C-alpha cells in the first residue's frame, strides 16, 4: 500500500499544477493531455513505429554486445596470457566515457542505423564483459577440482562446471548491459534520427509539445522497467540456486 502513496501524490500534484493554470501547458502538459497524446500517437501508428525502431536498435545493439562480450570475456577470463594481451587495452577503452565516441562514430558510420546500433553496443558491451571476466575468475577452484577428480575432459569441465558457475555473474552483467543499452539508444536518437522514442523527444522539443516529450519519457521508463523485470525473471529461473540475498 505504502509504495503507491508517493507516485499517486505526485500524480495529483502534477494534475493540480497544470489544471489550475499555475504551470502553462508549453512548460508541462497535464496528465490528461499526455494520455490523449498517447492515444493519438497509438492510433495514428506513429507510436508503434517509433517504439519498434527503438526496441529494434536496443535488441540489435545488445545482441552484438552480448556476443562480443561472451567471446572476449571467455578468452580473457580463460587465459592469463590473453588477459595480459587484451585486457589493458579494453580497460583503457572502457575508461573513455562511451558518449565521447559519438563524433567519431558519426564521422565513420554516418547517421544511419549502423551508427546507432554501434553506439548501443558500445554502451552494453562493458558491463557484460567485466562481469563475465570477474565471474570466470571467481569460480570456486574447489568445484573445478571435483570435476578434475572425476576425470572430466576439458570440454566437460567447461560445460558442466565453469559455465553454470559463471552464469549468475553473466546474467547480472547482462541486466546492467541492457539498462545501458536503453541509455545509449536515447543518446543515439537524440543526435540524429527520423524515428524512435528519442526522435519523439526531439520532435516534441522542436514543436514545443511537452505532452509528446512526456509520452516518450513514459515509454522509455516502461521499456526500461520491462526489460529489467524480464532479466530478473530470467535470473530467478536460471540461477535461483544461488545462496545469496536477492538484489
Amino acid at each position: 500500500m505504502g509504495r503507491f502513496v508517493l507516485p499517486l501524490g505526485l500524480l495529483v500534484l502534477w494534475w493540480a499544477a497544470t489544471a489550475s493554470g499555475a504551470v502553462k501547458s508549453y512548460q508541462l502538459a497535464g496528465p490528461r493531455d499526455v494520455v490523449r497524446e498517447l492515444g493519438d500517437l497509438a492510433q495514428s501508428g506513429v507510436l508503434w513505429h517509433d517504439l519498434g525502431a527503438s526496441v529494434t536498435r536496443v535488441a540489435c545493439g545488445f545482441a552484438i554486445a552480448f556476443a562480443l562480450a561472451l567471446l572476449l570475456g571467455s578468452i580473457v577470463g580463460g587465459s592469463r596470457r590473453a588477459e595480459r594481451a587484451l585486457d589493458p587495452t579494453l580497460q583503457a577503452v572502457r575508461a573513455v566515457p562511451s558518449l565521447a565516441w559519438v563524433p567519431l562514430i558519426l564521422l565513420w558510420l554516418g547517421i544511419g542505423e549502423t551508427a546507432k546500433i554501434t553506439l548501443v553496443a558500445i554502451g552494453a558491451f562493458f558491463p557484460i564483459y567485466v562481469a563475465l571476466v570477474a565471474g570466470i575468475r571467481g569460480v570456486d577452484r574447489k568445484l573445478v577440482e571435483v570435476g578434475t577428480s572425476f576425470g572430466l575432459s576439458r570440454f566437460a569441465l567447461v560445460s558442466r562446471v565453469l559455465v553454470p558457475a559463471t552464469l549468475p555473474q553473466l546474467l547480472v552483467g547482462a541486466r546492467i548491459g541492457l539498462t545501458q543499452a536503453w541509455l545509449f539508444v536515447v543518446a543515439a536518437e537524440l543526435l540524429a534520427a527520423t524515428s524512435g522514442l528519442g526522435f519523439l523527444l526531439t520532435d516534441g522539443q522542436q514543436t514545443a509539445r511537452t505532452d509528446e516529450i512526456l509520452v516518450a519519457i513514459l515509454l522509455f521508463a516502461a521499456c526500461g522497467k520491462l526489460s529489467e523485470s524480464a532479466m530478473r525473471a530470467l535470473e530467478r529461473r536460471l540461477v535461483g540456486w544461488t545462496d545469496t540475498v536477492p538484489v
Partner: protein
Amino acid sequence: MSRQPTANEAARIRRLRKSFGSHLVFDALDLDVARGERVAILGVSGCGKSTLLRCIAGLERPDDGTIVTAGEIGIVFQEPRLFPWLDVRRNVAFAARNDAERARVDNVLALVGMLHVGDRLPKALSGGMAQRVALARSLVRDPALLLLDEPFAALDALRRIELRAAVREILEFTRAAAILVTHDVDDALALADRVIVLAGSPAEIVFSGTVGENATRTAVLAALGVSDQGLHARRASAS
C-alpha cells in the same frame, strides 16, 4: 615393477617424490594399501598428508615415483563441494558415466540416508547432510579405493560422531579400501585397520601399527609427539 596392481592390492606407492617450489614434501615415500584395507594417516598440519592423498587422486602431479591403484577412486574432501546449481540427486549423478552408474544414484543416496532430500538444492542442506551427499557422490562409481581428506573436520562434535558411524558402516558394506587423512586420533582408531603417522620434512612414515594391536591411543599420540598423560603425571614421572 608392474604398473598393474595385484589381486590383493588397492594402492601401491613407490618412491613418491613431491615438492612445492623449494619445499620437499616427500622424498621416496612408500605405502601399500591392501584391498578392503582401511588406513588412517595422521600427522600435524602441513606435514603432507593431504598432499599424499591429492597425489593418489591425481590432483597433484608427483615429481617422481609410481602410484598404482586398483579400480575406481572415490574422493571426499574436507568440505562437501557440492555443485550449488544441481539438486542432490544430480550432484550424485554428476560422477556417473553410464546407465549402470546412474542406476546406482538412488542406492548410494539411500546408503548415506539422504534419499529423502534427493530433490533439494545444496543450499537447503545442513553441513552434515551435505557431507553425506558428497560421500554418496564418491560411491557412485563403486570405487575400490575411497580417499577421505579430513571429511569430518567441518562438522560439530555430534555430527562428527554420526557421520563417522555412517562411514564405518558404508566401508564395511562396500568393502572398499580407504585412506583416511585426519588429525583426530579418535577418528583414526574408530575407522581404520591400520594407523600410520607422517612426520618430518620431507615427511616419512614414523609409525605404522594395527588397530587393536600395537596402534593404541597412547602409542599413536606418542608417535605424534603428544602425551596423553596429564601434567601431574608428567611431573610425577620427572621427579
